């Protein structure tokens, strides 16, 4: 129970007026970011990251992680009131959330969504508190081969669990690795793939990629759809909240199942979006009222929201304990750690105890603050959505451009942001997943380093990845994940007809 003591230490760090203020600012900004089109968790955090360069790492991570929680909460508001998912993981929330709002139960739907989000996040934070130190101490013994195998498993999971065609996922991911390779080779210090260009000496910064791909790309997509917001009024008052809270415990089975799905999908980097869909689908099949799903069932709001939040939160577990982020936003936070001079990975739990436990403690408090903020401020956030797109769009573009510039104080980065934005528009429209691309840019150097060090130990033999039981198991799991679409297809084609006979 050493971790309980550490956690209490973390609360002591967090409970200062300054950090609590950062927490509230972070949550409010996060919800605004989650509500606005073109700004999401990942690029919202990326844009604000340069502002934190001068803060202490603990305050900085509290501010940024609270933006993340806020963005997770914010997605539900637009889904329910406007039938527009502010974030990809809240698409499933529109299925029953918006019909509820149309029936005049917007308050109930919002309360259910926020409370479920809170429950999902809390579950995931408890998992992190208990599991992360164990995973980290286990991972301390990892050599280069084990490290590479963890990266391998993480990237293979994208191929196996994504809904995009596997070859497109691999193409996007490898593009990320190629972009990461540009510039100075971290192992030998040699320049590569710069083709004599001075702008490419430093390589591609993933923050610029995130701001472009997710921010500008999203604006272009919204522009194409010619959005006009037609929302339902947000009526939420204490009576409705209490009434809904009385009702919610009845759905504890759905909640618990969604928590488990969410944590699983968050730790293996499948992410919040598939988690919310999977949870909704399973809830629909398991529920007595399954056939009424889609017409405004409260269970249809609870399931995806719980899972999305559990996944979004638990994505920080591998980020903290292994240095492998489980979502694009977690990847940006990991980039933040590097910038503040912290080395993510298992050593963090030994060398930066105060920072890690401060962050974990802030997750508990941040989600409580978040629940209170969203429940009390819904009308304000809904009003933001009514600002016409012709005003919001150029303002967001300017904010993205400033965010991109401040990363390295370089005007060329603003050009790159636009290039990434246009690329993001085409990739998204052609069904290429962006999350593995971004994660590959972040982790490319580390994965390559681990790979090359492993080969150096084995004198070039790939057998090093099957040299011990642990490495072999992780690599095999990775291969299963990689070929999962193929395997499940084979299973469906060969075995199912055979069983029927």
């Amino acid at each position, binding site marked *: 129970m050493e971790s309980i003591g550490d956690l209490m230490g973390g609360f002591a760090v967090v409970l200062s007026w300054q950090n609590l203020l950062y927490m509230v600012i972070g949550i409010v900004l996060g919800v605004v970011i989650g509500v606005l089109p073109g700004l999401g968790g990942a690029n919202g955090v990326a844009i604000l990251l340069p502002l934190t360069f001068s803060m202490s790492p603990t305050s900085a991570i509290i501010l940024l992680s609270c933006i993340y929680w806020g963005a997770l909460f914010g997605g539900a508001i637009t889904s329910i009131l406007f039938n527009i998912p502010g974030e990809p993981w809240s698409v499933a929330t529109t299925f029953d959330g918006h019909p509820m709002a149309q029936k005049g139960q917007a308050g109930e739907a919002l309360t259910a969504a926020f409370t479920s989000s809170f429950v999902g996040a809390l579950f995931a934070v408890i998992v992190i508190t208990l599991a992360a130190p164990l995973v980290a101490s286990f991972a301390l013994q990892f050599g280069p081969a084990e490290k590479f195998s963890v990266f391998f498993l993480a990237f293979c999971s994208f191929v196996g669990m994504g809904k995009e065609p596997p070859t497109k996922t691999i193409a996007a991911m490898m593009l990320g690795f190629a972009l990461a*390779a540009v510039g100075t080779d971290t192992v030998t210090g040699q320049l590569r793939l710069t083709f004599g260009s001075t702008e490419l000496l430093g390589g591609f910064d993933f923050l610029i990629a995130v701001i472009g791909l997710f921010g500008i790309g999203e604006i272009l997509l919204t522009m194409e759809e010619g959005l006009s917001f037609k929302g339902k009024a947000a009526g939420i008052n204490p009576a409705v909240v209490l009434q809904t809270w009385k009702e919610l415990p009845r759905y504890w089975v759905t909640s618990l199942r969604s928590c488990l799905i969410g944590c699983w999908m968050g730790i293996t980097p499948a992410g919040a979006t598939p988690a919310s869909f999977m949870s909704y689908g399973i809830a629909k099949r398991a529920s007595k009222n399954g056939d009424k799903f889609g017409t405004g069932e409260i269970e249809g709001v609870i399931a995806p929201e719980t899972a999305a939040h559990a996944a979004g939160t638990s994505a920080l577990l591998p980020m903290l304990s292994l240095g492998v982020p489980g979502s694009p936003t977690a990847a940006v936070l990991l980039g933040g750690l590097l910038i503040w001079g912290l080395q993510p990975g298992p050593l963090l739990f030994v060398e930066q105890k105060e920072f890690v436990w401060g962050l974990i403690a802030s997750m508990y408090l941040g989600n409580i603050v978040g629940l209170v903020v969203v429940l009390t401020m819904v009308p304000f956030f809904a009003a933001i959505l009514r600002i016409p797109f012709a005003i919001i769009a*150029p303002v967001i573009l300017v904010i993205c451009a400033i965010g991109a510039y401040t990363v390295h104080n370089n*005007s060329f980065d603003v050009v790159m942001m636009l290039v990434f934005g246009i690329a993001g528009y085409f990739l998204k429209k052609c069904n290429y997943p962006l999350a593995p691309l971004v994660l590959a840019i972040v982790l490319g150097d580390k994965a390559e380093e681990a790979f090359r060090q492993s080969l150096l130990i084995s004198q070039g033999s790939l057998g090093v990845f099957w040299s011990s039981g642990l490495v072999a198991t992780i690599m095999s799991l990775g291969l299963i994940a990689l070929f999962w679409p193929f395997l499940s297809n084979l299973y469906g084609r060969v075995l199912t007809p055979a069983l029927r006979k």
Partner: protein
Amino acid sequence: MSNSPDDPDAAGPRQRHVEMGVAAFILILGAITIFGSLKVGIGWGAEGPKSGFFPFWIGLLIVATSGFNFVSAYAKPSRKLFAEWGQIAQVLKIVWPMAIYVAAVPWLGIYVSSAILIIGFMRWLGRYGWPLTLGVGLGLQVVIYVTFEKWFLLSLPKGPLEDLLGL
């Protein structure tokens, strides 16, 4: 949204043609990666695998998967539209101003460029009156200046106007 991209009468580029284009573009990037890796060496050097070793295989994977994506887009008989011309015009309405904006930032500084972008956009696409347009366009610059330069002490690019004002 008068008609959806699935409407047979609507005109625009076909999804499969765009997908072929995107796959070809990624394939070329993969080929460049292979070429660049070969230049720095993909074999075994004094400190183990040379700098080009890892990106070389990455490049090969890009070329292989993009080749597959290209062929499967080519083989798809679908007539689905990527987007209608009207929708593409909408997207271009934001891409062109953005491109000019990005090019203008090093010369005019970020404040003047941003103000022009916002004011132009609100007048042209939003058709708002001057008071609101100027209010948002100029007001945001003040907010940005105070937040970044005064509060967080981050210097943003400035142009001739800021020199004139002595900021």
